[in-house]
């Protein structure tokens, strides 16, 4: 055992790991928010509730269909993403030309309804969801103990984030998305079905939240308020990274998770507020966010 700046290395690496885990969720969730905001111009306040729905979908799939973690990791995002498609068709599509406030209010109201219904049926105590057998246990890295499930969460989150970034920034489909963000009318006049693309984008963003929810279930338990607690921090992450920036969401998500973890080691009193302090500073110095485009 060695020490760094008077802190035992195991504590340091332990917090670094927790920071990376939290960062994995910040990144996945703020990525979804950025994708949705970029394409729909809507600040999706139901993102936390949709993350919670993902976790509940996994829980219910296990309870009632006997489908475990791995199938749930695919099925839950598809199911919750499909509800996103319905929400977009029924409600959101009428709001694009209005002020951001309308989309924000609608999705916020939706979040309250989803959470209220969940609390009504499941109470507010957390329901346990066990780590899948294949990922139980862990390995000793010498300087710390690394649980397999946590390693998986970090790798899975990074993989999804990088793949999403790649698709948006480097492929033909991504070029359609970026172009439609700038000028949807012209992209449509080139023969691309932009409304369908917008619907699927919302479905994808919601599915990302649900995917994060399934991954969170074995770590944080499954509870109706799991999303609303997390989403406040995630919105701060989005503000810091810059609304609508894909790379910004990913880098800021992981970065702030780590910063938060390190604060817990060196200055524990500030660990719950550090992200908001950074947000305030960024808003003062670079209102568009670290990665945001100006104007």
């Amino acid at each position, binding site marked *: 055992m060695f020490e760094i700046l008077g802190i035992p290395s195991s504590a340091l690496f332990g917090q670094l790991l927790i920071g990376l885990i939290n960062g994995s969720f910040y990144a996945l969730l703020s990525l979804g928010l950025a994708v949705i905001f970029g394409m729909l111009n809507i600040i999706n306040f139901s993102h936390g509730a949709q993350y919670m729905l993902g976790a509940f979908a996994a829980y219910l799939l296990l309870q009632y269909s006997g489908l475990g973690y791995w199938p749930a990791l695919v099925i839950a995002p598809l199911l919750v993403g499909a509800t996103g498609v319905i929400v977009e068709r029924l409600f959101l599509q009428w709001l694009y030309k209005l002020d951001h406030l309308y989309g924000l209010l609608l999705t916020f109201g939706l979040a309250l309804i989803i959470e209220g219904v969940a609390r009504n049926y499941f109470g507010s105590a957390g329901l346990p969801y066990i780590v899948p057998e294949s990922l139980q246990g862990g390995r000793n890295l010498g300087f710390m103990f690394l649980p397999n499930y946590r390693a998986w969460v970090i790798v899975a989150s990074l993989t999804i984030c990088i793949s999403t970034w790649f698709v948006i920034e480097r492929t033909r489909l991504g070029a359609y998305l970026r172009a439609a963000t700038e000028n949807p009318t012209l992209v449509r006049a*080139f*023969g691309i079905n932009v409304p369908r693309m917008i619907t699927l984008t919302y479905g994808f963003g919601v599915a990302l939240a649900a995917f994060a929810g399934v991954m969170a279930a074995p770590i944080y338990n499954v509870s109706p308020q799991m999303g609303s607690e997390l989403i406040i921090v995630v919105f701060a992450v989005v503000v810091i990274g810059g609304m609508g920036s894909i790379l910004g969401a990913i880098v800021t998500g992981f970065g702030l998770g780590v910063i938060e973890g390190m604060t817990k080691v060196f200055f524990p009193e500030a660990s719950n507020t550090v992200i908001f302090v950074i947000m305030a500073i960024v808003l003062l110095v670079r209102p568009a966010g670290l990665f945001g485009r100006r104007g």
Partner: protein
Amino acid sequence: MIEAPTPLLAVNALQAWYGESHILHDVNFDVREGEVATLLGRNGAGKTTTLKSIMGIVGRRTGSVRFEGQELINRPSDQIARAGIAFCPEERGIFASLGVEENLLLPPVVRPGGLSLERIFELFPNLKERLGSSQGTKLSGGEQQMLAIGRILRTGARLLLLDEPTEGLAPVIIQQIGKTIRALKEQGFTILLVEQNFRFAATVADRYYVIEHGRIIDQFVNAELEANVEKLHDYLGV
């Protein structure tokens, strides 16, 4: 009299609105297969609105827009594009978040028979040199115009709607665009060209329509140009 062939594009009793403002009142004209028709008119006459109405991107429109005999007036714009009409907007519409190559490859191919990239680079050699540029809007105005025209040549669209492609460009570039339009006509493209620059239009057009206050007020063919120059100056206020 010889029977005229069915026009490729037939616009009849076209009206269009932006919100409450009634912009096009009664627009009627035809574009025949393989010709360059030009729509002339002063600023604010309704030229751009006419092209946007054909393309299905104004608030509300009524009347009839027939392309190859198909009625397009109630179709959404993506279906109009897929019917084989391509639009090059006045503001060019180059995407800042896309590189030059991405901008060029953006419009999907809607039919076979579009130009190959090599052929497009023959028409616009500058584009090939700028292909690596990471932001389409970093090109000069002339290059952006070439990119805006070049990208719709790949799609296989038969009818090109060009909205003031010479606006704000240097004379040499205007010449190059004129040469390109003539080359495209030779390749069998049909072009509806919107212009205020009647001198430029006269170098490429087969048929002229004059629009004022949202109505077509005059029309003539190239052979009648001489006889109409006086009137045109009047219409356009030059």
